[in-house]
């Protein structure tokens, strides 16, 4: 009977469908719960079939909002984000999001409409060479030339986006391909001889690392987002505790290791902690797990980890040895590598002296800022948010000063609660990303912390938040400036504040109210405490406009071109 059912199902799955219905059936087969998109001419056949499909589609107010929302969804849910945009301007509007997802290894499957096959290349209305434009910013891309291939293409796209090092995959669908019909078979196996990611690490290299650890005097782990993508946070903790190795995070890795753990040294890099950066400078064994030695992490490469033997565990072999010469390369999945390392249970190195030194630095050079009466310091604001949410919230940010303060002062205890634009540094990311994050975890407290600059790049998505009544708490860290630009101009450009001060920002409270969203303003610590507590007990979206001290800078800081040990602003 059961077998009979299976045959029936299989027959049902082999029915003849038009391209648009194939897309919808494929999304159902992939168990996609939500898609983000915006209709237009070239995708009208797809939207027509979506109308009664039962697929949950979120209409963002700009395609950039759709793709950042999909990124937020993917980051929090661990599943690929799905986006639909129309041809031409619809597709070019997602270019920033594709690049962002490519840089930060976010799995996305993006469908773009295209003009009909017979007019491609004729500069038709709303035609753009989307394949050409997006080649360098996608993990892979397709243009459908024969509707028979569509099921295979979609299946491959989901496979490529979510396996190996995750990333965005784009499928460009000419309008006639959505209408044309063919047999729909989604049961076929994916066969990609040119794509066979290595997940199982080489045993000999693992042994080499175990040997190196046993002899190390000053070992340290630098853990990146690869740990989160591999869901290896438990193993990271277990391994660090087993071997007594302190852990440093990259910006994107935060949450992979509990911030309140005694072995945690903080974030590394340009605005990292003194202890983390000095540990990287002084260590004799550096174990990189799933980080790509970005320049914001390493500072001047000539001075990076000068005394260390470098081991690097990465799913992407091209990252190993790209920026930093690596003695022990381990290609593979972070979780599998850590499991093997734990099983090896190698000789624990003697690190007591090293840990003493690190603890001394931690005591001597903590993160610091000055509180002043009557003034709301942005660092204090983040500390308060951390305190009132018990460090449990899902937090999204834009890019700039507020992002660094969140990274420094919101002490993430758990993985998969932190959504930020790391590699590309995309302003306008935080608000739409929060939409995706909240949809991925409807029960979670989601806080979108943005600057007054970046907020205005995607604020139209307030409309979506109101429409879906997503209880997101939007925190604007308002310093009436493009803070990070202003800071650099203060330090490196003789305080010539060229186009970075914006004293005439709109009234964000009334703006939110115009969108039907409750809003409050705070200019002191006392007011901040009141509005934060009020917002956190409100089961609806709330926008909070915090007028923080405008001249505040992010410290400590490694100036561009300097080594990590040359950081400034570590002590009064």
């Amino acid at each position: 009977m059961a077998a009979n059912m299976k045959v029936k199902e299989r027959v049902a799955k082999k029915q003849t469908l038009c391209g648009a219905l194939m897309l919808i059936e494929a999304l159902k087969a992939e168990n996609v719960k939500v898609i983000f998109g915006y209709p237009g001419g070239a995708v009208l056949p797809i939207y027509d079939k979506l109308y009664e499909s039962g697929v949950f589609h979120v209409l963002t107010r700009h395609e950039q909002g759709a793709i950042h929302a999909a990124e937020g969804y993917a980051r929090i849910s661990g599943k690929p984000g799905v986006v639909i945009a129309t041809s031409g301007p619809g597709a070019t509007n997602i270019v920033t999001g594709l690049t962002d997802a490519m840089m930060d290894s976010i799995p996305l499957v993006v469908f773009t409409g295209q003009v009909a096959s017979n007019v491609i290349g004729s500069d038709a209305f709303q035609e753009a060479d989307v394949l050409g434009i997006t080649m360098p910013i996608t993990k892979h891309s397709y243009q459908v030339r024969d509707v028979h291939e569509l099921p295979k293409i979609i299946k491959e796209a989901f496979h490529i986006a979510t396996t190996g090092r995750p990333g965005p995959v784009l499928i460009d669908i000419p309008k006639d391909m959505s209408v044309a019909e063919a047999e729909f078979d989604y049961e076929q196996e994916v066969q990609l001889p040119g794509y066979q990611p290595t997940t199982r690490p080489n045993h000999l290299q693992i042994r080499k690392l175990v040997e190196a650890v046993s002899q190390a005097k000053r070992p340290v782990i630098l853990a990146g987002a690869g740990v989160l993508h591999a869901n290896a946070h438990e193993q990271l903790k277990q391994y660090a505790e087993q071997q007594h190795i302190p852990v440093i995070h990259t910006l994107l890795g935060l949450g992979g290791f509990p911030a309140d753990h005694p072995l945690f040294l903080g974030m590394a890099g340009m605005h990292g902690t003194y202890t983390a950066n000095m540990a990287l400078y002084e260590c004799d064994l550096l174990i990189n797990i799933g980080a790509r030695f970005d320049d914001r992490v390493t500072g001047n490469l000539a001075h990076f980890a000068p005394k260390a033997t470098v081991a690097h565990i990465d799913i992407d072999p091209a990252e190993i040895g790209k920026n930093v010469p690596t003695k022990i390369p381990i290609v593979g999945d972070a979780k599998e590598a850590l499991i093997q390392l734990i099983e090896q249970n190698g000789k624990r190195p003697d690190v007591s002296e090293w840990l003493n030194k690190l603890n001394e630095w931690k005591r001597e050079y903590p993160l610091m800022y000055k509180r002043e009466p009557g003034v709301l310091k942005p660092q204090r604001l983040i500390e308060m948010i951390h305190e009132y949410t018990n460090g449990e919230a899902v937090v999204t940010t834009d890019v700039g000063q507020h992002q660094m303060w969140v990274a420094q002062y919101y002490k993430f205890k758990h993985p998969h609660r932190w959504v930020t634009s790391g590699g590309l540094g995309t302003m306008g990311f935080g608000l739409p990303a929060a939409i995706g994050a909240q949809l991925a975890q409807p029960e979670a407290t989601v806080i979108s912390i943005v600057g007054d600059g970046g907020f205005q790049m995607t604020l139209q998505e307030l409309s979506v938040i109101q429409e879906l009544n997503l209880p997101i708490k939007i925190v604007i860290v308002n310093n009436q400036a493009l803070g990070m630009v202003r800071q650099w101009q203060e330090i490196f450009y003789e305080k010539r504040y060229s186009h970075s001060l914006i004293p005439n920002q709109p009234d964000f409270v009334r703006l939110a109210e115009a969108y039907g969203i409750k809003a409050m303003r705070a200019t002191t610590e006392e007011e901040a405490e009141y509005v934060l507590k009020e917002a956190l007990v409100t089961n609806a979206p709330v926008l909070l406009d915090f007028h923080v001290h405008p001249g505040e800078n992010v410290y400590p800081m490694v100036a561009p071109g300097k080594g990590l040990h040359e950081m400034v602003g570590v002590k009064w």
Partner: protein
Amino acid sequence: MVKRIITMTVNNRPGVLNRITGLFTKRHYNIESITVGHTESEGISRMTFVVNVDDERIAEQITKQLNKQIDVLKVVDITDQAIIVRELALIKVAVTPATRGEIYTLIEPFRAAIVDVARDSLVVQVTGEPEKIDALIDLLKPYGLKEVARTGTTAFPRGSQRASSTNKSLFII
């Protein structure tokens, strides 16, 4: 600068050459020449690149980045192997009745052929290693080169490799 010869097999799909050359542009790798053509297997093409790189680290990065492309099936940096390297050139050289015979004699040791004859010009076809072609072009220059077309390098590992030139395997995997 070091010259590296990289060969690879790729799926013969629309846009694949664009993907590869785009990658070279994106990562600032200098291509000296590219050749592309069908292989013995249907749907699979072979590409041969000659690139100039600063050091071995960049050469390794190139092969790794190429390997990441889904349509790339296999990448090998064959520079250090025993290989056959060939290029073809067509050289249109100006002639007078007086120089015609001289040119015939001159190209003979190169095993080049005259493939087109006109009243005031000849087209010489030559194959071989790029240095040999350079040498012939130099010799023909004084007569007046009207046009030169070169295919770029294509290359192949020899059937049997000398023991000394062991294949430089990637240090990982």
